[in-house]
């Protein structure tokens, strides 16, 4: 078997607190990469190896993906530990992009939670084959069979149990493998020693039933197995093959179980990773050929072809910038020449390394399909590097726009310098994190996907860059829009010595109909007979584009607007590009109010999960926040309330929810849409904006 067919690139995705970091830790341990097991929030003060950032250790959450290479039964496996919180989904999406398969970790008590649904949706988007691992079977209330049913009901997955637990909760002893029909126990202080036994007598009947169910489901993916079942000549090998085929084709999801914390079920999970998840040659990846009108080209995981490489993550280490890469085509050697497709810059591959969570080893060559890291390459996250003979770009990743902003002020000169360094790095690493200097207030503004997202970056500035900053109240990224059509006819004239300026533009602005692929801005040229010469049409467009950058209501961008120019006039000498730009800009300012402008606000899809007894409090808290309850699902003692709530009302919600539910409920949110702000609220916003402007002008 060649190296590449043995290779696996996998991710571990899950709901926060379902134990994925502990699971990653165990995987590292069993594949002999680390010598002792450290717990997340561990008493030994070391913390789990995968969480390399100090902050993560303290909070017990995993922020950035750490890529690490392990080996199991002679198969190299690259494991990407992905963050679980929704605020960081860009990280999850980016790692899914470079993965060939994933382990979906679920908690055997909480089951499929909102975050699992989000993560699963992302996996579907990138067509990532997955196996499910039901963790925490040692917890009180563990019910893996129910969780498997939720995978079917809530995620619509064809989940198939390959194991059943031997004992549950504090009596969890091991698992029954339904393929080999053996009981597996995990002996030794760290579960290193696998002991295979006959299935306990009292479980035999259940195991036989579950095996039949498993075979029925798996046989749908394989004619060979189906025939063998009819002839009663099923072999283990046939079952393995059928599961592998079904998993890679995304037709089924094998379900395994155990408890990472109690060291149970990890080795069979690793066997499943190499047994059922695809190697790099079994996954189709495409790139866009820039020289050929961005036609999609299929990449071949063949080391003889010219290299195509994606830089999917940046990290600033002690020794300079580290770029995590995935090699989709060709291979990479030290000294190879590559071109960054975006910047067109050529560079030579200097230091090439393979990463372990926070240590690294130098390598001379990286194989096709492999994940490695480069040192000192000038680039941004998501850049494509090609062999000089190619001009391919990996398809651009879906990047959501930021919904929240925060102004930050460094306390002294030193902090200001450090802050600039930090921001430079963060924006390169995370496309959902933006920063700019507001020209009016001269303050530095950072933008992101949620309160926590920004908080984490502010803390990282303090800790990693020693940049002390004072933050303001977070601000919502509003939008402005017009609600009706209005006509304009504007003449821009200036004759104050020297060459004059003259331009007249007429036409109308109107809202673009709402719809799924509605544009934010559109310019329509309906000029007839050259009343505005064609060379000045783009100037009009540019003028309007400048105008919509900042509406007059709150100073936020105007969206969903179409500007149509159907008449105008020019002067042979005095007309210019600048004159038409100014005319368009002024025409817009003048007509805007007549088009009845409104304010739009980001509305979040909020999902709250908690015990049913607090359902009333949850309903009430959403109701108080101008929220709309979309649905509420009750499943025994737990309920999930899905709602749409304006982002501006969600500040501090985690604290409120905690006190309303004795800390037993949690929530996630993501951007759902932009909606019109009710009149009462928009009047307040406008008044506050005017007040702020007055103050700034008074300065």
């Amino acid at each position, binding site marked *: 078997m060649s190296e590449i067919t043995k290779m696996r690139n996998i991710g571990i995705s899950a709901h926060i607190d379902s134990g994925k970091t502990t699971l990653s830790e165990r995987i590292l341990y069993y594949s002999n990469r680390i010598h002792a097991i450290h717990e997340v929030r561990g008493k030994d003060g070391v913390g789990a190896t995968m969480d390399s950032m100090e902050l993560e250790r303290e909070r017990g959450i995993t922020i950035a993906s750490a890529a690490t290479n392990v080996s199991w039964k002679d198969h190299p496996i690259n494991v990407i530990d992905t963050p679980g919180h929704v605020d960081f989904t860009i990280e999850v999406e980016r790692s899914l992009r470079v993965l060939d398969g994933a382990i979906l970790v679920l908690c055997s008590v909480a089951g499929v939670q909102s975050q699992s649904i989000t993560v699963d949706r992302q996996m579907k988007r990138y067509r990532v084959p997955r196996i499910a691992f039901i963790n925490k079977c040692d917890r009180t209330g563990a019910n893996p069979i129910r969780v498997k049913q939720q995978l079917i*009901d*809530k995620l*619509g997955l064809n989940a198939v149990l390959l194991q059943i637990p031997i004992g549950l909760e504090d009596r969890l002893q091991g698992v029954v493998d339904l393929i080999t029909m053996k009981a597996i126990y995990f002996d030794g202080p760290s579960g290193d020693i696998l002991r295979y036994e006959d299935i306990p007598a009292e479980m035999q009947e259940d195991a036989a039933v579950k095996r039949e169910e498993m075979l029925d489901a798996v046989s749908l993916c394989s004619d060979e197995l189906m025939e063998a079942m009819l002839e009663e000549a099923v072999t283990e090998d046939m079952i393995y093959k059928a599961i592998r085929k079904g998993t890679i084709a995304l037709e089924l999801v094998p379900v395994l179980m155990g408890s990472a914390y109690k060291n149970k079920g990890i080795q069979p999970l690793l066997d499943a990773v190499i047994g059922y998840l695809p190697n790099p040659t079994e996954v189709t990846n495409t790139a866009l050929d820039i020289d050929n009108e961005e036609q999609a080209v299929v990449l071949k995981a063949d080391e003889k072809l010219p290299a195509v490489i994606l830089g999917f993550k940046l990290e600033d280490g002690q020794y300079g910038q580290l770029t995590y890469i995935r090699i989709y085509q060709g291979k990479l050697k030290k000294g190879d020449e590559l071109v960054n497709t975006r910047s067109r810059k050529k560079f030579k591959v200097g230091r090439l390394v393979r990463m372990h969570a926070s240590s690294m080893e130098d390598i001379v060559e990286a194989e096709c399909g492999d994940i490695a890291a480069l040192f000192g390459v000038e680039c941004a996250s998501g850049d494509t590097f090609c062999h000089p003979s190619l001009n391919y770009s990996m398809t651009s990743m879906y990047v959501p726009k930021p919904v929240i902003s925060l102004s930050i002020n460094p306390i002294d000169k030193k902090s200001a310098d450090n802050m600039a360094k930090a921001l430079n790095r963060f924006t390169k690493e995370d496309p959902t994190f933006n920063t700019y200097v507001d020209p009016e207030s001269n303050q530095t503004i950072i933008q992101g996907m949620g309160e926590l997202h920004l908080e984490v970056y502010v803390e990282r500035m303090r800790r990693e860059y020693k940049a002390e900053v004072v933050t303001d109240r977070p601000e919502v990224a509003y939008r402005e829009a017009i609600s009706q059509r209005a006509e304009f006819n504007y003449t821009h004239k200036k004759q104050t010595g020297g060459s004059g300026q003259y331009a007249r533009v007429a036409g109308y602005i109107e809202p673009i*109909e*709402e*719809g799924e692929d509605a544009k934010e801005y559109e310019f329509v040229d309906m000029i007839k007979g050259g009343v505005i010469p064609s060379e000045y049409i783009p100037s009009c467009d540019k003028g309007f584009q400048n105008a919509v950058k900042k509406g007059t209501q709150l100073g936020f961008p105007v969206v969903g607007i179409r500007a149509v120019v159907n008449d105008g006039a020019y002067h042979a000498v005095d007309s210019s590009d600048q004159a038409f730009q100014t005319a368009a800009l002024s025409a817009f300012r003048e007509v805007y109010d007549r088009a009845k402008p409104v304010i739009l606000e980001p509305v979040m899809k909020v999902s709250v999960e908690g015990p*049913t007894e607090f*359902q*009333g*409090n949850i*309903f*009430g808290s*959403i*109701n108080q926040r101008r929220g*709309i*309850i*979309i*649905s*509420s*699902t*009750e*499943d*025994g003692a737990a309920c999930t309330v*899905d709602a749409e709530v304006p982002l501006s009302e969600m500040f501090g919600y985690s604290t409120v929810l905690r006190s309303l539910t004795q800390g037993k409920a949690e929530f996630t949110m993501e951007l759902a*849409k932009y*909606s019109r702000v009710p009149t009462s609220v928009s009047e307040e916003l406008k008044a506050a904006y005017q007040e702020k402007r007055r103050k700034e002008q008074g300065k």
Partner: protein
Amino acid sequence: MEIQELNALSPLRAFDESLNGGLGKGNLGVLVSRHGIGKTACLVHLATDKLFRNEHIIHVSFSGNVEHVINWYKEVFRQISENRSLEDAATVYNEILANRVVMNFSQENVSVEKVLSSLETLIRQGSFNADAIMFDGYKLTVATEDDVRKIKQFAMDLRVEVWFSVSPVRPDVQFDDNGVPSTILRYESLIDVLIGLKYNETMDKVIMTLVKDGETIDPKPMRVTLDPKTMLISE
């Protein structure tokens, strides 16, 4: 077309007329048929019509999949708005969406008390002034008489209109000519309006028969039928 006109032209006006002005608050209405005839579609169309008229709806489902229910609403809305070329449909949809809550119970055999208490929580603590509650797929045929009485009492206490879609659970149930299963007859006295749905092959329509209306038990076909292709009620 604007909403007012759309509402005036709705086939549901004929439906209401057959019931002498609609079911009315405090009353129980039941749609019955065999499986797969289109009760859910019918129920969603009834609900959507109410949403168009600014009423507040709670849709109670027992399927475990909320997305499925929401898609039904999307589809019914899409068909109605496209057929009638509704103006500014996307905005209207977002507006009426605010008046609908889907309440889902994935646990098997959840008790009537639990369902009603959750509904009351939503109405009172969530300040959701429901006008009607649609029970989709509730196993009314295996409920006890006491359960049905509690639901009726709830409808009267909270002044809401309650609709059920019912399919028999047992496979050996007998249906009469109007598509009504024998098992429902136990509660006939508690039901205010009973409508049977039955597919008629020659007409290629689902015939809706008003089996019971108030105190009158005199089955007669309604002026509306269900189109098996669009799954919408039509005249």
